């Protein structure tokens, strides 16, 4: 299970973005989290991905509470979660070719020798051609770059996937293609998914259940 228990988080302890939010994702389950811009859903996604330490509350990953966050988290926990962000351009190192971008998590975890095989395998899955793999981010479109970012998120075979508005900048065809890649991966590995977004039609189609942000926030906490 990926369990978020009464999480309070934000960027200023005095004014948290949200208080007391709980949400859980079962293994193999796809949960859509739906909310308007600025509601705090991306912050919650960052907590779930071990990228943001909450002010209070507990994140349980496969039954064990998470005590360390970001780079301080032990490697086996950090790599259990794959993340795809909304803005591919901001989440890709402009100096790396797409092949290096996809292989980076393998390098960072000392599994460099697997890189060539995994990159080729994933490039096929996400639809990147050999020619595109040699280019740097500024030489490809948003859709192509997001394909690489998804491949990067999958390269360590995470048990959990967090997709924060993965398709908000993309056209309909690329959206459908990337969702299919995620679903194929989940079907093969049984990974759980937290998909954050504001497109109800998309999340309803994609996920096993869709949760409204408003239903997660306790009534008392909404006064700001």
């Amino acid at each position: 299970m990926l369990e978020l228990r009464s999480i309070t988080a934000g960027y200023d302890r005095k004014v948290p973005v949200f208080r007391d939010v709980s949400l859980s994702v079962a293994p193999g389950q796809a949960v859509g989290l739906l909310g308007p811009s600025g509601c705090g859903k991306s912050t919650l996604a960052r907590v779930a991905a071990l990228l943001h330490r909450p002010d209070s509350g507990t994140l349980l990953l496969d039954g064990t509470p998470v005590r360390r966050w970001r780079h301080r988290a032990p490697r086996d926990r950090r790599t259990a979660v794959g993340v795809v962000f909304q803005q591919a351009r901001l989440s890709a190192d402009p100096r790396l070719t797409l092949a290096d971008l996809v292989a980076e998590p393998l390098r960072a975890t000392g599994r460099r020798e697997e890189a060539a095989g995994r990159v080729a395998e994933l490039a096929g899955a996400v639809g990147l051609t050999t020619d595109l793999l040699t280019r740097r981010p500024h030489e490809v479109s948003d859709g192509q770059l997001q394909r690489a970012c998804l491949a990067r998120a999958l390269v360590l075979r995470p048990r959990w996937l967090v997709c924060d508005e993965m398709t908000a900048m993309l056209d309909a065809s690329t959206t459908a293609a990337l969702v299919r890649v995620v679903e194929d991966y989940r079907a093969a590995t049984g990974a759980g998914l937290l998909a954050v977004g504001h497109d109800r039609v998309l999340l309803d189609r994609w996920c096993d259940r869709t949760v409204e942000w408003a239903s997660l926030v306790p009534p008392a906490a909404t006064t700001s």
Partner: protein
Amino acid sequence: MTERAPVLSVRGLSVRFLMPGGHRVAAVTDAHFDVAPGECLALIGESGCGKSVLASALLGLLPGNAQTAGRALLGDLDLLDADERTFARTVRGRLIGLVPQSPAAHLTPVRTIRAHLEETVAELTEVRGRTALREAAEAAAGRAAFPVTHLDRHPHELSGGLAQRAATALALVGDAPLLLADEPTTGLDRDLVDRTVDELRRHVDQGGSRALLMITHDLAAAERIADRVAVMYAGRIVELADAAAFFGAAGPRHPYSRGLLDALPDRAFAPIPGLPPELGALPEGCAFAARCDRASDACAALPPLRGTVACHHPHAVLTEAADRA
């Protein structure tokens, strides 16, 4: 609608980028379309298909290595022939109002929305004097439903929706006959998308003589407000159709347009296989053939735009009214 002279008439518009090493990128090729008064034309297609380059060409904002051909007539003025001085003094803001892609980046971060509006009013209209400018700026904000209470805020203090309205208010100040909206809804949530495009539609309906060219990859937004739809693929317009038929029972006729609609989550949610071709290395014939399930030997030749569609194997016409040239 067709009896009145079009606001914008694009004839054979092409844009080429000259790259180092004599390499040429065909960003837009031979585009033909009209936008009539009171009409909204949605230009749709995947990212990187040349939509925004077309918009830049109309606004004289192409980089120095671009070459253009064809004509784009706005009244008597050929936009492809105009110099920077003409664009700066008579076109931008006055003949074409631009609703930009990311309003947060379009607005000046260190100035309030009121300062933006007053400067624009002073620049584009005859209004003079402090009080008059202040009133005109507030009226302009009201036209785009921007709340007067937020006029003294800076861009970073606005939500995405309010920033979008501020940008729309600026685009409307000059009362330009053509509104050009370049991906006006990227990154906005569904409610805001609906509100933003409804407002754009309202401005077209109110004026009667105003026209809207909306460039978007958001098919739901296009369906909501467009009268006609132009589908662009690999720099070419491959289908130019009535929006009601395109999104309705008749459906699109070009296999690519069908693929785009079928990719929507409330339809088949099936992606078009493969990737769009590189604009620098387009195939000789139909650029979509490699991804098309209807492709045959005929597709080795480039299909001309006949009637409403440029395809050798278009889907059947369901209505008798459909034109076959």
